């Protein structure tokens, strides 16, 4: 008996938005691709379910990265930890706790029916706005910036929620209005509204790297969501034009000098610049010291208080110093594999929403890796972008692993070959 169209709509309200899914559904029905028992399960889609099993390669790559990252975090942090906390294991122990919590969150999320997120996407975005507003009214943290909401044992960074909120919202939006995404009204307009408001709130914190990442994620989501390439090119042209105008008028070099001595870490001329570029310069020293083969695991010298907080944003400089260019390249390769696997498995997801969400979440890692490395190598201003799975930090790691859990959840529906 052919299933009633209306019944499908009621059973799985998400998929009515997805014409593509409906077509595939039709085809698969004819091919009897999905067994009746599976169909039933989908009809009564629950909040949690096992589905077809997670994508093992993705999961393994993820755990490998997490292991390497934790080892390097320990190596980078133990001297700093010893000097500042009187205990070399201070950061390691906490990070392991965060990992445990994060992995638990990941496992839970991998069983979570991501389709349920379709409904709550606007709510998540709402929570992101709320936290962004909340952090502004809370007392300022270290250095007068308002980036953290203190929550007892660890702090929550609203921008982390905002990143997830933006990816989730535009996955929802683009899959809902997929046919209308060609129109500026459905792509450019919500993009500008969401990005603009979040950027404003982040500007007030201030958290410039957050703005950059949110901006890139917005563009990315709109692009894969079906926005006209024309708009992307126009936007890119405007950006290049702005940079050119600044360069010609001399505004760029002024901006660069204002941005904490960006690009001038080795050519400091004043004491102020010496201090401003201290972290970046020592990062460059560390990277240069690594050479091709590195000084060996645990042999970094720059981590001995030269690089401030070596367990955070600048951890990769210590990684390069210890493991060399070879080690850095291998780690980048593993990241690339993760991203590749994450994107390809997302493409095989059964629905538009899953595809967009999986691609968005995975790409976010790639963007952060690239930006982080460009920051520590002084190609971008030092603005505080952490390296996924490596940098120390509770809320971001747990958020990250939970998001990876979502990708794994998507992989349960993905039609990819498994052994």
């Amino acid at each position, binding site marked *: 008996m052919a299933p009633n169209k209306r019944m499908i709509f009621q059973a799985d309200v998400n998929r009515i938005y997805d014409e593509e899914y409906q077509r595939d559904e039709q085809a698969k029905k004819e091919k009897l691709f999905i067994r009746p028992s599976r169909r039933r399960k989908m009809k009564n889609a629950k909040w949690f379910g096992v589905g077809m099993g997670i994508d093992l390669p993705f999961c393994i790559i993820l755990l490998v990265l997490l292991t390497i990252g934790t080892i390097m975090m320990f190596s980078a942090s133990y001297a700093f930890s010893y000097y500042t906390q009187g205990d070399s294991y201070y950061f390691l122990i906490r990070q392991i706790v965060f990992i445990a919590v994060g992995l638990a969150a990941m496992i839970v999320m991998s069983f979570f029916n991501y389709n349920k997120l379709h409904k709550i996407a606007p709510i998540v975005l709402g929570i992101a706005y709320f936290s962004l507003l909340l952090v502004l009214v809370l007392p300022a943290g270290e250095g007068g910036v308002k980036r953290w909401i203190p929550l007892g044992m660890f702090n929550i960074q609203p921008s982390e929620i905002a990143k997830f909120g933006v990816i989730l919202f535009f996955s929802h939006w683009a899959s809902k209005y997929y046919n209308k995404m060609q129109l500026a009204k459905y792509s450019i307009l919500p993009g500008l509204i969401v990005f603009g408001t979040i950027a404003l709130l982040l500007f007030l914190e201030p958290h410039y790297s957050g703005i950059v990442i949110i901006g890139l994620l917005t563009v990315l989501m709109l692009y894969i969501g079906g926005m006209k390439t024309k708009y992307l090119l126009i936007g890119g042209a405007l950006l290049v034009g702005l940079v050119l105008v600044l360069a010609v008028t001399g505004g760029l070099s002024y901006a660069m000098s204002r941005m904490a001595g960006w690009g001038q870490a080795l050519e400091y001329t004043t004491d102020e610049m010496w201090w401003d570029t201290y972290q970046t310069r020592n990062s460059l020293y560390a990277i*240069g010291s690594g*050479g091709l083969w590195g000084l060996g695991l645990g042999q970094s010298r720059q981590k001995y208080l030269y690089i401030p907080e070596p367990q955070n944003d600048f951890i990769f400089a210590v990684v390069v110093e210890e493991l060399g260019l070879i080690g850095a390249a291998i780690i980048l390769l593993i990241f690339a594999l993760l991203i590749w696997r994450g994107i390809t498995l997302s493409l095989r997801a059964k629905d538009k929403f899953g595809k967009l969400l999986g691609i968005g979440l995975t790409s976010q890692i790639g963007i952060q890796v690239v930006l982080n490395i460009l920051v520590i190598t002084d190609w971008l201003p030092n603005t505080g972008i952490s390296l996924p799975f490596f940098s120390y930090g509770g809320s971001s790691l747990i958020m990250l692993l939970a998001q990876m859990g979502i990708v794994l959840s998507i992989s349960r529906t993905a039609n990819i070959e498994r052994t």
Partner: protein
Amino acid sequence: MEDNEKNANRRKKRAEKGPNQRLRQRTAVLIIAILVLGFGAALVRLSFLTLVQGSSLQEAAVSQMLRDTKINAKRGTIYDAKGKVLAESASAWQVVLAPINFETDQQREAAASGLSEILGVDYQNVLEKTKQKSYYVVVKRKIEVDQRDRVMELTEKLSKDYDCDGVIQLLDDYKRYYPKDELASCVIGFTGADEQGLEGVEFKYDDYLAGTPGRIVTAGDARGTNMPFQYEQNIESEDGNNIYLTIDETIQSICEKYMAQGIIDNNVKNRAVCIAMDVNSGAILAMVTANGYNLNDPYTLPADVQQEINELPEKERDKAEGEALSAMWRNKAVADTYMPGSVFKMCTASMALEEGKIDDNTTFTCGGSFVVDDKTINCHALGGHGTQNFTQAICNSCNPAFIQIGQLVGMNKFRDYYRGFGFADKSGIDLPGEADDNFWPEGTMSLVDLAVASFGQNFSITPISMITACAAVANGGYVLQPYVVSKITDAKGNVVKNVEKKVKRQVVSKETSDRMNEILGYNTETAGATAGYVAGYKVAGKTGTSEKIGVEEPVSGFGKDYIASFCGYAPADDPQIAMLVFFDTPDGGAYYGSQVSSPVFINIMTEVLPYLEIKTDYKEEDLAFIDVSAGDYTGLSLEEAKKAVEEDGFSVSVKGSGDTVLAQLPAVSSKLAPGGSIVLYTDEESRSEKVTVPNFLENTAAYVNSMAAGYDLNISFNGAVSTGGVAVAQDIPEGTEVSPGTVVTVTFAASTDSGFND
């Protein structure tokens, strides 16, 4: 992909595939953007930094970790010839700040006030240093143990009270000590703040003494403490080499003692020089520039000079002080020249003998003056010396005779020998700042010049070259290279360099040298104290008194400034040690070399020759003053005792009425002068008898001897007792009640008296 496509079929097909296809394409673009462009850029940037800039970045990283913790090498020790320490470096510390580790102004102020109090440095100055962004700022160097301990306490206090760590470091340092203070100051020299040699041997042998500073290349963390793991490249410091001087501390101190006395006695205005040289090797046994300065405090001028400078207007003071200091440090024996005067006659005589121009029978006539080229040159004896043979001419130090000798030698030969004796070149002594001589350039010398040159006037040479020439006259004609460093060893004692005797040339023959020794020995023997006669030794020598030419404002009271000198050696028949003594501008009672310098020479030699164990050869009249031992006469009968005493060459004085000698004075084996009286006690009562010791001072030895006989006392003669010596000290003071026969030790010294022969 929004491009117009003409093929309708295609469009249709695309429409069918539609969104899925578009998403795949866009995802491909995304993957390219992130994985190819993004990761590619990151990898390119990392490759550039590690492979291209790697070495320079690593260098910068290493250099910021290795904050040049230089480990100073221990500077070598300077020993005298007998291995006594003259200069050595002892451990000290330097206080270094790492102001970058300060966090608050409170910490800075606490550290600055603590350091300024402990080290006695300016508070504001230290405070400025605490504000620098540096890891290495020296606050004070060369602090000693007690200050170091207080700095360590301060460090603890800062850590405890202000939570301020790693700001003060104590690094090893060394401080130079000169245990003998002024001794041989002109030879040893001193070092500057960085232990670099500034004067004398310290300067000349700086490369040997300095050693190689090491670097502890521990990588420090950003707070300057050592990293907790092994990243160390330890370049050890290599301690400096030790230097053994030819200077003998004993001889040097004897010389300095008498030179200082000579300066006082003769009110010498422009310092004095004494050089003692081993005639056969050229080794300098002593070199004195009197008065010296305290090597431990080389920047302090003598009080009177400082006083004069303080009276100057303020802006001239610094300059005057600098000049006074460099004058004080100047080694007059090497860096200054003087006119040798009659001392030079030993050279003129040698060259005439060597050339065969004169022999023992050659006679010279002196009528009190001599005319050369219409210019009359006076002899010091206005009445003239009459007709003299060669030996007499030297003994008389007759200028007209030497003018004739000079003329016999001839101008060219004279110049050749001048060069041959080594006056024209630097002596090559291993001390800094040796001066050039000042002689007439070739072709400009007139007959008058030759005439005055033959008795050592109107040209100037360094004292060191004069003593070198004197040694050549004495040792068989060999011109030696003088040296003050005999041996250099490394810190472990292995010999790095051994200085050998270096003969430059033989300027006169052995025969000439022997003849000169005879003549100069005869000179001393006949002229006595005025020519440096030292009792018990055959000494050869020549006095010299030179007028300082070209002095516009004489400072002495004689109307002209003089240099009084004496150059001699001993023993005359087998020369071992030569010595030059000269006083520049004496302003006391006399200015002749025979009056001013001879006594000093005699006093020094009287102590130095026995020290060198030169064999004695007493003349009969001297034997009266050589101590002999008293025998044992107790227990003998009075008659036997008297006989024994007289046999031993003493006179007898009997106290008491017994028949047997119960006691004697001086006691058995006491040293007393021959012919002294032995007091024999034959009963106990007479032993309470006392005599009063008179004042022996200022009397000659012979007179003291006769005085002693009158008081029933015995004398032990000490020092320069021969002609010209007067008593300068007695060990039992005047007025003391002593038993008859007690031995009073009286010390004699040659003194300025009415001798001249110049």
